[in-house]
């Protein structure tokens, strides 16, 4: 279990306890947090679960797999701290993670 904080583009803060093994994307979708579309369902094929990871967390996350960076090329306003939330698997280590959701996914 990890507490994940999702901040939507209107600055609303959603603190959610997400089960280990789920992805950060699934944590958002299952709790109806707006702004994460996840059109492809977690297949790293659409870049609509794009989030900005807060800087102090970015280096602590697992490295991007091949293909994630390629998909991020397609994302809406990608930045240095961009990740696809379907590729972030929740574990105790992620307790306290804060992600910002972009204003749009496409």
């Amino acid at each position, binding site marked *: 279990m990890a507490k994940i904080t999702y901040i939507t583009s209107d600055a609303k803060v959603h603190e959610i306890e997400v089960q280990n093994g789920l992805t950060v994307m699934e944590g958002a979708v299952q709790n109806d947090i707006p702004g994460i579309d996840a*059109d*492809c369902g977690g297949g790293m*094929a659409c870049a609509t679960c794009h989030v900005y990871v807060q800087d102090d967390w970015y280096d602590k996350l697992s490295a991007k797999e091949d293909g994630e960076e*390629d998909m991020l*090329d*397609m994302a809406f*306003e*990608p930045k240095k701290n961009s990740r696809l939330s379907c590729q972030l698997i929740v574990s105790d280590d992620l307790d306290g993670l804060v992600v910002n959701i972009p204003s749009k996914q*496409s």
Partner: protein
Amino acid sequence: MIETDALIIGAGPTGLFTAHQIKLIGLDCEIVDNLDKVGGQCIELYPDKPIYDIPAVPECTGEELTKNLINQLKPFDIKFHLGERVEEVKKDDVNWIVKTNNGKIFSTPNVIIAGGVGSFEPRKFPVKECEKFENKSVFYSVKDKKIFEGKTVAIFGGGDSALDWAVELSKNSKVNLIHRREEFRGAQATVDKVHLLAKEGKINLFTKYQMISVKGNGQLESIDIKNDHDEKKNIKADYALGFFGLIMQLGPIANWGLNLDKKTIEVDTEKFETNQKGIYAVGDICTYPGKLKLILSGFHEGALAARACFKLARPDEKYRFEFTTTSTSLLKRLGKKE
């Protein structure tokens, strides 16, 4: 007006197999898809990625699966309407009247929506002012490359489309290629070619830059770009081309009076019918308790929806369930028996 027993919206794996089932039980059908090719997400999103959970097919790619499904449709004569988007679905006295963006009109008792996550549309520039220039000096595909001759073109993106057009247009235009990082994800040969042309001064390369604004009066004049270190540049451009792949949008489906749950359509699990009689939804776009977004589920849903179509298309006949191994009429339709 085209009359048919069933109109299928979407030519992905579910739409293709649904067509197979409809033809097998002796009905006619036609298929409309917004993409210019058959295969849906399989061909657009993961043509090279192996799939491991198609029953009796231990491993196949999205492209192979599509090819096999097309092969399976060979005995049947099915009309495809590709590169067309269904805009409107309305009921007349008896049938559904379906209109596409190209002005085609269908009349049918059965509409099967096998639309995946919606229709594929080009991903656009995040900068809102680009809309003002769209289809005049901002484009997301190239229809007529002659308009770029002797002009300055800014190409955005790092995949094959962006690179191929940068190479091609550099012959007769001044090309700026802008990409958000150093690495390109196109074919290595094309990436090498782009770097060579950049060295020769035929392509201006701006890596780690993204668009922040566009300027111009009616016609595009220049584009502001910025890198990760907040360094800004203004580049002159007569045209901007964006190649950021495709995005799926539910689009007009939202306006057809169907019960939706987020971006999916609610159906029953007997006929896969929506709240509108004669409109069905199958594959990734439908939802019901326990729904799995698997290709195999789409096949099952299509098979049942096809049987439901029979009742509305042939109200005076009785549908009889038959096996392809033994039924003479099915084998005739499959071209295996005279």
